[in-house]
């Protein structure tokens, strides 16, 4: 059981690179440094004022064992406390939570968290192979797509979710991305285009899946005293919850029902005093690895009942002008630099609360939800508020 921290902690600044499929112009440390500089600039702070740096990515994808050590020149961790956390897809949100806990402990006033991935430099196949369990999964390895697809059919079968409804998620999110200067894929799509895109593994088509991007994201967490000095409208962390689960796809319902998200949001809502998420939240950044997942995560996050994810997107409630805009940043369908992706959800939610969203700003954001997904269908949930 988690509870609210003893001390108030807020996110006061963020920085992201402009995510692209390849960044041959920078090496990994330079790319990290770009996000760090943008974040410091957002805070109008210098590296000297940061007490600790927590960093992570998905190590096997680039083949670098001690990135937190190598990146010291670019991450600013020199002679500071530093840590590396690597939990697969949830890395970014694990890092964000680590930033929160570090400041909440009272031992650090300002902590920078950095998530990054430069998958173009690694061998994706090798990365995928190492991700598959050597005893139980490698012999039949069919990537994340295999598990998403094989459980999406179960989801469709049980609840009558359609491929059209899923396609709407891709249309919505990639169009939202036009408002986000950092997003990788910005596309003006129709449902037909999504349905006609290349089939990868039924029912998942190319445009139903997230891309792989090179990019980095940095955030600064600050104590109450510092936060009020650094930022006009800090994004206060009012709940942080993690749930892990059994290791294998076959142990779980996967896309059909993400029970870790269900369990984590239930606890987070209790901590944050949220009774009706659709009404009480003003914006949500959900980690949607594929279109079908976003529909299912609406249900797991309590925006609607089981099996009603398709109906919810049909209603328009999760569009920019709807009751609860989901993924105004463009979501994971637009940008996926794995080690950063979950942190980008938290950063984008913070941007909304801080009022720094520019063209993607949702009006009057008081409470924002950010979720991380990855590992073995794990979930991180962070709730931010404009008041502590």
């Amino acid at each position, binding site marked *: 059981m988690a509870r609210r921290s003893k001390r108030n902690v807020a996110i006061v600044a963020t920085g992201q690179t402009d995510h692209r499929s390849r960044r041959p112009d920078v090496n990994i440390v330079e790319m990290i440094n770009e996000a760090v500089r943008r974040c410091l600039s957002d805070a109008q702070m210098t590296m000297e004022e940061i007490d600790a740096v927590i960093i992570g990515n998905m190590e096997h994808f680039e083949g670098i064992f001690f990135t937190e050590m190598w990146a010291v020149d670019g991450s600013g961790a020199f002679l500071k406390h530093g840590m590396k956390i690597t939990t697969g897809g949830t890395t970014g949100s694990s890092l964000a939570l680590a930033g929160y806990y570090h400041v909440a402990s009272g031992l650090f006033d300002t902590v920078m968290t950095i998530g990054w991935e430069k998958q173009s430099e690694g061998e994706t196949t090798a990365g995928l192979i190492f991700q598959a369990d050597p005893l139980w999964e490698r012999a039949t390895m069919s990537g994340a797509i295999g598990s998403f697809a*094989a459980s999406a059919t179960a989801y469709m079968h049980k609840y009558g979710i359609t491929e059209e409804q899923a396609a709407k998620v891709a249309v919505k999110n990639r169009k939202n991305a036009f408002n986000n200067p950092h997003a990788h894929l910005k596309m003006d799509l129709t449902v037909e285009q999504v349905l006609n895109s290349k089939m990868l*593994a039924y029912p998942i088509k190319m445009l139903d899946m997230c891309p792989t991007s090179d990019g980095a994201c940095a955030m600064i967490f600050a104590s109450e005293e510092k936060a009020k000095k650094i930022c006009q409208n800090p994004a206060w962390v009012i709940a942080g919850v993690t749930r892990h689960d059994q*290791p294998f*796809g076959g142990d779980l319902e996967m896309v*059909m029902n993400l029970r870790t998200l269900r369990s984590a949001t239930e606890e987070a809502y209790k901590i944050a005093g949220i009774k009706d998420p659709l009404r009480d939240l003003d914006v949500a950044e959900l980690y949607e690895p594929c279109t079908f997942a976003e529909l299912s995560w609406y249900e797991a996050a309590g925006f609607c009942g089981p099996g009603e994810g398709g109906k919810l997107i049909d209603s328009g409630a999760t569009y920019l002008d709807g009751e609860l805009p989901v993924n105004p940043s463009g979501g994971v369908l637009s940008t996926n630099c794995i080690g950063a992706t979950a942190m980008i959800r938290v950063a984008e939610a913070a941007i909304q609360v801080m009022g720094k969203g520019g063209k993607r700003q949702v009006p009057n954001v008081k409470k924002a939800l950010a979720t991380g997904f990855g590992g073995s269908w794990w979930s991180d949930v962070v709730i931010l508020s404009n008041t502590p």
Partner: protein
Amino acid sequence: MEKKNEELLVAEFNAQFTYDYSAGRYASYFFKQLKENKRIMGIKCPKCKRVFVPPRPACGYCYVKNEEWVDLGDEGLLWGYTIVQFPFLDPLTGEERPIPYGYGFIELSGAATRLQHFVTASDLRKLKIGLRMKAVFREERKGNLADILYFKAIE
């Protein structure tokens, strides 16, 4: 170092990382049964009585040690499936898998968790959720999950 266009250099690193993974007592028994007897075994939690496959030392729900082996037979229901069109690399052969192929989750009778494996039918288009599937074993088995070729729809 190679010189690429626009003078952006790329440093290559090529290494063959090999590992000798210990299968452990549970997996070792499972694969022995698979190889020698064409039996798919699950492990039962003494407390909640759920039978898990693949086998594992601890029940995640009760946090107790799993001890009793259960023969799960070789038939089950297709819970979810897909037809893969993307040529993933087969780590066991180093070659791309021929596409299309079926992949899915099978609920073996009596098991609380599903086994993921290749699935097929006389025609891939006949695959649908709820079909009864039967394991087809290789003639020559090595004691790994590829000893099962695939699960085939009973038609």
